[in-house]
């Protein structure tokens, strides 16, 4: 009985001590790292949608490399859909599952630097191509998954405003004399795809605005509807053209016929 009592007495202070230690150790490590983070956001005086609508985020951490076994991420998220430019990071689309179950910015487009990756640099530059006029909020921080939960340190944000280019008058005939062979609606209901023999048109389902018109065979949306792929070239061609419907433009080609979209269309394997 005395032995049992002793065990109980010993156990009571231990449990909270362990929990505190767990949180403290990781928090201290992350806070220490955050002290050495320097971020500079460079934006043109007038951010206008089009060629110069690019914001550059230069970041550096003047610290030793993060060990491989301590997952730590520098994450930049954007409140509106964007395209990222640069190397040394990977990107995730809105709603794609975050690394190591991290939810930081999960409802937004993200650029992610896994600092514990042995090939990751401790400094870099991430350029952000803004696609829509209006307000944009960039948020960044150091994030680490721990046994105590998701820890965030050095979180900061920058608010910017992008203006539209000079107004364009678009003459668009919504009543095409040629009826499409097939009409496909994206999974999110946002876009309507008209498929013709050797070409296709994508419309905004709500406004009826033409988003993309291009040559291509057997076009179809990616699972989230953000991207579209269509065969290009001759009948036997296996080249698939990829289009980003947020940007309303072609973004590249891949070799089919296999096309596998992963993690909310963040990655495509062909």
């Amino acid at each position, binding site marked *: 009985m005395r032995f049992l009592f002793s065990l109980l007495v010993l156990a009571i202070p231990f449990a909270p001590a362990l929990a505190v230690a767990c949180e403290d150790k990781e928090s201290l490590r992350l806070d220490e790292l955050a002290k050495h983070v320097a971020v500079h956001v460079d934006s043109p005086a007038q951010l206008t949608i089009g060629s110069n609508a690019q914001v550059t985020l230069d970041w550096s951490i003047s610290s030793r490399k993060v060990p491989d076994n301590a997952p730590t991420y520098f994450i930049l998220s954007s409140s509106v859909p964007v395209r990222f430019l640069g190397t040394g990071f990977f990107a995730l689309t809105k709603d794609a599952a975050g690394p190591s179950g991290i939810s930081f910015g999960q409802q937004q487009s993200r650029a992610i630097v896994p600092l514990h990756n042995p090939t*990751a640099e401790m400094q870099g530059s991430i350029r952000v191509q803004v696609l829509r006029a209006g307000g944009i909020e960039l948020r960044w921080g150091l994030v680490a998954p721990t046994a105590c939960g998701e820890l965030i340190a050095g979180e900061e944000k920058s608010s910017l405003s992008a203006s539209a280019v000079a107004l364009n008058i678009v003459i668009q005939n919504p009543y095409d004399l040629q009826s499409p062979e097939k009409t496909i609606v994206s999974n999110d209901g946002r876009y309507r795809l008209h498929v013709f023999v050797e070409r296709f048109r994508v419309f905004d389902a709500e406004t009826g605005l033409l988003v993309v018109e291009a040559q291509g065979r057997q076009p179809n949306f990616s699972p989230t509807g953000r991207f579209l792929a269509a065969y290009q070239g001759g009948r036997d061609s296996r080249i698939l053209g990829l289009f980003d419907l947020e940007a309303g433009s072609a973004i590249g080609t891949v070799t089919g016929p296999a096309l596998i979209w992963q993690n909310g269309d963040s990655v495509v394997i062909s």
Partner: protein
Amino acid sequence: MLVLQPLVDDVTAAIQTKNQYGVEELCTSGCATTCHPPARLLADNEGCNGCGAAWSEVTTAVSFDSGVAARWNRVQDSDDWNQTLYSLRFAVSLPVAVKPYDTFMSDRTREIVQLTIDRLGHLAPPRPSAVLAEGTFARARDKLEMVEFERRSRHSASKRRWTRPAGATGAAPV
């Protein structure tokens, strides 16, 4: 097989140079060791259909926790798989002492030492059981090939039915 990031643009100007045979590189889908692939590729392969490589089976996986992607191709007539690693949208290669020409490696290939490659290996995703492509050209069958494949399957099945020896028991193969 190519893996790319549809959300990232990092296109650099195409480099058009002649290789050691005096032939201008025209590879657009990419062979990392022989020409510059489109720069937006997450990583590129060191052998592809255009280069005449043939793999029996191919599979790939991406770790979003570490930014490491891996591709495996089965060693011919073996249960072994060759693994190729990619990290943060770069192909990974051991340092090559002598490069016969300027574009010997793509600008998306990083030369790193074996120790770092080993560390990447620990962060790499496990090999999935599903094979993404199989066959001489290491790719999935397309629709036309599937029609042809099914037609041949039906044909051989019907042949089997007709050639069933007289007096044999059991249901005919379907």
